[in-house]
């Protein structure tokens, strides 16, 4: 249990313990949004069950004037609304922190801590007295604690009202009821407690030019902007909201203004086997096509992924990773599909992976994924995760370069085909391992057979050893070309020369950045290389070589990134040390700080 200092202005964690299906999500995101609009950096993590109604759910809001958006591990203010988890919620509050509970029912037995402040508000009683409908009473309890928190934390009430009005723009009656509930909670707090608490907010100006968005929404926008026209999917948590978002953006931006006809086609497939098939069929025809999925979906797509690698078809897949193996914990986060995605399918296969670290990069790398898939004629898998995909992150406003034109790669059109004597699909005239392709329906000379069976460089069926090997060796050349085309790593140099380095991917980023600052304060200086793609490329290899010791930070049990690094770069395993977090919760910086401190202690002792 971390210690909470007495005064924590703009630097604290607010955790809300609710029952799912009671409407708490909108109240909690309202809280986060108010803080964001007050100009204070904030992030929200939703720990929700794989269930629709009745199970415990938590929402953790980190307020950080320094802009740290990962989890800190502390809980400074707990709103305990779920009697079933009350005991553990009480335990989790950091020493010196505060717990707010619904005092409609006595909780004497459970108020067993003296090192924290416990505040009771009769939320249910207040709502029962003022609202008649049973469902409304449940929903308004949430808004009532928003009101109480407004008083305790000194939230801007004007902004609260503004947000309530935006949320219920079309239903004036609801705005009124929600505001009434907020005022109930607010008035009670002002009357009974010393407001505000030492832990509170104060307006700043650190969020302008930023938005609060989740990665699935941002990735969907990337698909729209990259010009994707075919989307195929099978519903699976936590990727579902990506296609939901794509659909809603398309409804608004992709319909013919006169006829209402769609210039996109979304197919809800019968399973993931079909979803990837639909993507390949569309890509084969030159449409930009994608499918969002998660680990179990990647497992089912294996056969077709190998097919696409071998027949050299573009495809964009979003793997919004969740906890495995098997069904695992569908609503918890992990980075445990690295190996299964990198080598998906039987035979010698390797896939290009991209690793966004926040929603901003989900947008950027979604666009890059389509360009790379077309350029390299191969599947590109964007390795997001539940934390990035479903939680709201504060990131820079998305921008679009109007001069962007999609890179459609080496596609021969009718005019070019007219001019050639004969077309052969798998020749490598440019020496970069990337052949030329043609699209069906364009020109008779472009016809060829897409086949997963052995084929030679002319595209014809073969069972000849030398002919087969020539094709798969060229695919290796293509992999080397890919290493030069994929996004380079982001390298953060320590302020002082460092012998140690951290290597990581994706959503570990906020925790690592915070840890690096904390370690620097303790005199431990470490460089940081955030890999953004497989194949890794030269800069990653250089980073590994330049550091005596590399800490590989990742969110899985078996150190999959470390294995990939060893396999792909030949870097000795003993020069890499793992820091792992794989319980399903977004990484917090403590495991990194502790891991490196421990390493230093052991180093000093040796």
């Amino acid at each position: 249990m971390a210690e909470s200092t007495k005064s924590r202005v703009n630097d604290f964690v607010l955790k809300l313990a609710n029952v799912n299906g009671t409407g708490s999500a909108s109240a909690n995101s309202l809280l986060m949004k108010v803080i964001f609009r007050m100009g204070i950096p904030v992030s929200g993590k939703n720990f929700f069950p794989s269930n629709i109604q009745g199970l415990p759910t938590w929402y953790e809001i980190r307020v950080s004037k320094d802009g740290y958006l990962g989890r800190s591990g502390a809980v400074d203010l707990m709103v305990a609304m779920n009697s079933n988890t009350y005991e553990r919620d009480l335990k989790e509050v950091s020493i010196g922190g505060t717990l707010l509970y619904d005092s409609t029912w006595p909780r004497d037995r459970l108020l067993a801590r003296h090192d924290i402040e416990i505040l009771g508000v009769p939320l249910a009683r207040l709502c029962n007295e003022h609202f008649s409908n049973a469902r409304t009473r449940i929903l308004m309890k949430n808004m009532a604690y928003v009101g109480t928190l407004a008083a305790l934390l000194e939230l801007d009430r004007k902004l609260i009202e503004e947000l309530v009005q935006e949320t219920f723009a079309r239903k004036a009656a609801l705005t009124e009821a929600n505001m009434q509930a907020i005022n109930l909670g607010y008035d009670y707090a002002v009357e009974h407690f010393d407001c505000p608490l030492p832990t509170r907010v104060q307006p700043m100006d650190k969020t302008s030019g930023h938005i609060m968005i989740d990665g699935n929404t941002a990735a969907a926008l990337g698909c729209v902007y990259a010009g994707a026209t075919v989307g195929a999917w099978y519903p699976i948590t936590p990727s579902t909201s990506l296609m939901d978002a794509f659909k809603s953006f398309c409804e608004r931006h992709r319909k013919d203004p006169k006829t209402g006809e769609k210039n996109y086609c979304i197919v809800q497939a019968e399973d993931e086997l079909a979803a990837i098939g639909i993507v390949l069929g569309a890509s084969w025809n030159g449409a930009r096509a994608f499918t969002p999925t998660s680990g179990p979906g990647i497992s089912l797509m294996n056969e077709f992924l190998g097919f696409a690698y071998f027949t050299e078809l573009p495809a964009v897949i979003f793997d919004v990773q969740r906890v495995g193996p098997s069904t695992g914990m569908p609503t918890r986060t992990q980075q445990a599909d690295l190996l299964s995605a990198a080598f998906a399918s039987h035979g010698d296969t390797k896939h290009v992976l991209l690793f966004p670290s926040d929603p901003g990069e989900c947008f950027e790398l979604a666009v890059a994924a389509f360009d790379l898939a077309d350029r390299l004629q191969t599947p590109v898998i964007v390795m997001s995760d539940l934390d990035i995909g479903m939680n709201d992150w504060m990131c820079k406003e998305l921008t679009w370069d109007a001069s962007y034109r999609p890179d459609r790669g080496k596609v021969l059109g009718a005019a070019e085909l007219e001019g050639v004597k004969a077309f052969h699909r798998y020749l490598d005239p440019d020496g970069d391992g990337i052949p030329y392709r043609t699209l069906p329906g364009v020109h008779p000379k472009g016809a060829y057979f897409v086949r997963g069976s052995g084929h030679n460089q002319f595209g014809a069926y073969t069972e000849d050893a030398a002919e087969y090997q020539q094709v798969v060796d060229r695919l290796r050349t293509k992999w080397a070309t890919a290493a030069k085309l994929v996004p380079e790593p982001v390298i953060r140099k320590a302020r002082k020369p460092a012998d140690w380095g951290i290597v990581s991917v994706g959503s570990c980023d906020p925790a690592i950045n915070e840890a690096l600052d904390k370690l620097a304060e303790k005199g431990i200086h470490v460089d940081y290389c955030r890999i953004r793609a497989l194949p890794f490329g030269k800069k990653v290899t250089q980073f590994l070589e330049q550091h005596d010791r590399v800490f590989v930070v990742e969110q899985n049990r078996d150190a999959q990134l470390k294995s990939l690094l060893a396999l792909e770069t030949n870097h000795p395993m003993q020069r890499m040390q793992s820091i792992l977090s794989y319980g399903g919760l977004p990484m917090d910086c403590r495991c990194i700080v502790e891991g490196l401190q421990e390493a230093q202690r052991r180093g000093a002792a040796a």
Partner: protein
Amino acid sequence: MTSIVKPKIIHQGLKRNALGLTVRDYEGGMSTLCAGCGHDSITAALVQAFFELDIPPHSVAKMSGIGCSSKTPAYFLSASHGFNAVHGRMPSIATGAHAANRDLVLIGVSGDGDSLSIGLGQFMHGLRRNLNMVYIIENNGVYGLTKGQFSASADVGTKAKRGEVNKQPPIDPVQIAMALGGTFVARSFSGDKDQLVPLIKAGIRHTGFALIDVLSPCVTFNDHEDSTKSYAHTREFRHPVVQADFVPPAQEIKAAYDEGEVMPVELHDGSRILLRKVAKDYTVGNRGEAIEYIRDRQRAGEIVTGLLYIDESEPDMHTVNGTIAAPLNQLPHETLCPGAEALAKLQARYR
């Protein structure tokens, strides 16, 4: 090289179609199937149908899965793109292809293993989507490439070459298509080109999923005396109920039919199918009665053939989706990308 290129010899007197092409222009590589395989007759029927419909070969895409039947797209329309998908998954590839380019003429060739076992799910969902394609099942009751195991279409009591008797009831693609709302359901026999060619033509012109289940005997593993999928058995027990004659747009109907015997069906492109009753007791156009009839005849050991059901009014996948008429793969990026200003504007809700 294991594929065999067929030499192209064009005789002076060879008939040319409206595009100036001969039937040779619709052929493909040499078949590597067993001599006498029913599939080769279906290939020939496909060549003839595409030739007679004056379809530019490069506007067609040939789709297949895995198996003997799925090899056949290599043997026709060499100027068409082909796609040999993974086992049982051709319908999903076809769905994506059609989503991207609705102008492409899709001809799918599958088998009873590919469509009724490993690919049964995709087959049914292709039907359910009313995907605009011709879907031929070259049905022989056995797995040929793996040497003669029963397939899911094998009849009860039929004997394998090595003597094993099948005890599980067959899956009939025609009855599945009927039950799932198929809009074009036909059955034929590889040995009956007169029936098959017009069916293929009508299927190509039908807007929606055109299923043609073609009994196509396997000479190597399932053409013996105790097989219900042999040439001899199929010839003896097939029971044609409706003959479908295909009439292209703007062509006069020349043959004289007795009134009440013929039912014309107009297709979306203006061509017509003339459904001629062969069996007096078969009702054309009634799904419920058709299912019952097919089942009754099946119980009596007969194989009902012909264009058993057609409905031109049901919407296909793109109609349901409300897709624009232009193929999606031909839209310029400018019409697809909402632009920088729209991006700035739409982010208001995330502030």
